[in-house]
């Protein structure tokens, strides 16, 4: 499958930017998009979490197909879990665990999300805005 075919199959309004193609999706459509990416042999690249000003989170998943970046973004309301794609892309395991370490985002659809960079007894969320004053 080509990057254009993947975009077409996932649907929606893709935006072409200097760094690749971007698509906003509701959280419940992320897993279907990931399945299409895998069917098209797109390589999982990264997951990026960014906190918003009202407690919401912007999450993006990035794939690569022959140099074309395909990015899918979603916004999570405060306290809402994010969909896990670990059962589709095993390579997303560390990305999800790190997102939990940094922002205390929980992932729905996986048995557990152990710490990755933090110690097991550390509280998640070291990069939350509420932690800004931490030395």
């Amino acid at each position, binding site marked *: 499958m080509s990057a254009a075919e993947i975009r077409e199959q996932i649907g929606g309004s893709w935006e072409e930017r200097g*760094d690749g193609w971007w698509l906003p999706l509701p959280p419940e459509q992320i897993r279907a998009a990931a399945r299409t990416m*895998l069917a098209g042999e797109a*390589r999982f*690249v990264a997951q990026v979490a960014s906190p918003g000003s009202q407690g919401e989170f912007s999450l993006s998943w990035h794939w690569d197909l*022959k*140099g*074309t970046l395909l990015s899918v973004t979603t916004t999570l309301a405060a306290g809402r879990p994010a969909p896990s794609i670990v059962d589709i*892309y095993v*390579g997303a395991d560390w990305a999800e665990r790190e997102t939990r370490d940094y922002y205390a985002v929980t992932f729905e659809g996986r048995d557990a999300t152990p710490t990755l960079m933090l110690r097991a007894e550390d509280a998640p969320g070291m*990069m939350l805005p509420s932690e800004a004053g931490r030395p």
Partner: protein
Amino acid sequence: MSYRIPIGPYHLALEEPYKIELDCQGERVTGATLKVGFNFRGIEWLAERKNITKAIALMERVCGICSNVHSMTFCMALEQIGGVEVPPRAQYVRVVVAELERLHSHLLWAGIAAELIGFQTLFMQIFRLRECVMDALESISGNRVNYSMNRIGGVNRDIEHPEAVRKAVNQVQDAVSRTLIPLFTTDQTVAARCRGVGRFSLAEAIAYGAVGPVARASGLDTDMRRDHPYLAYNALEFAVPTRPEGDVLARIVVRALEILESCRIIDQTLERLPAGPLHAGDIYLVPPGEAVARIEGPRGEVFYYVRSDGSDTPTRVKVRTPSFANIPTVTAMVRGSDLADVPLIQGALDPCYSCTDR
């Protein structure tokens, strides 16, 4: 009998700490669990609390081997947000330093691999070659590790003695093509130790998101320099070596061939070095926006996401290093292998725990 062997966080062969727990049935490995984070420095957290100029220096501390690619990719993301055009000469200088860094990284790894295989003489030969590359980097930047070459919109220093750099590169090219490649591809001891060990399929490479030489040794034909050209790579001729076998030997051969390709790239770049300025002026701020920058580092694709609110401090910096993508693949590579092969399989990944932990 089944049992679990904890190895690490401190290792005999690797300087950096991490832990691997191996589930074994007799001498056969049936599963593995990894624990990282021993080098965690919170670099993303720190970058979001420093002004851009300081953050460029910080990013160069992500890795002690491929330090340049981190400051370069960070600058490229900022340049994209700000619409900053990098002058042609600066692009070529960046290519030379990036490829010298690849030579340094690959030779360092090849030396360690030779030692892991038990080939001490080769280890010493390779490290002697690596010194030529370190000297070339020092002649350009004044530094052997953190080169401080990058700034937003260009580079801080010129290549004042291109002929000396070419001479060093030609020396590496000659030695690698005459000694290293024939040895890695035809020596029976190397083949017996590495062929069929630590197999990792193309489908696994896609699912795990493997990058760089690890992915290319499993038949995944990916290289950001060719697939999504940046800097001057569009104007340069080079091949992307791949192998279908997905074993330790394939990873060794791919890296050895990449050394020659980097030499070719440096040779062409120095020959065509255009005249002109080294940077686009003093830039300390970029407008609000976000961008992803990706480049092909020595260990594979480096991914940076940067978001700016227009102030001098980035609001979000995400760094995905190649080792972060590659290290989890070891759990698939060691499954079904002999316990004695585990150090070699890990070594063949060229793992960097400093990069991974950031």
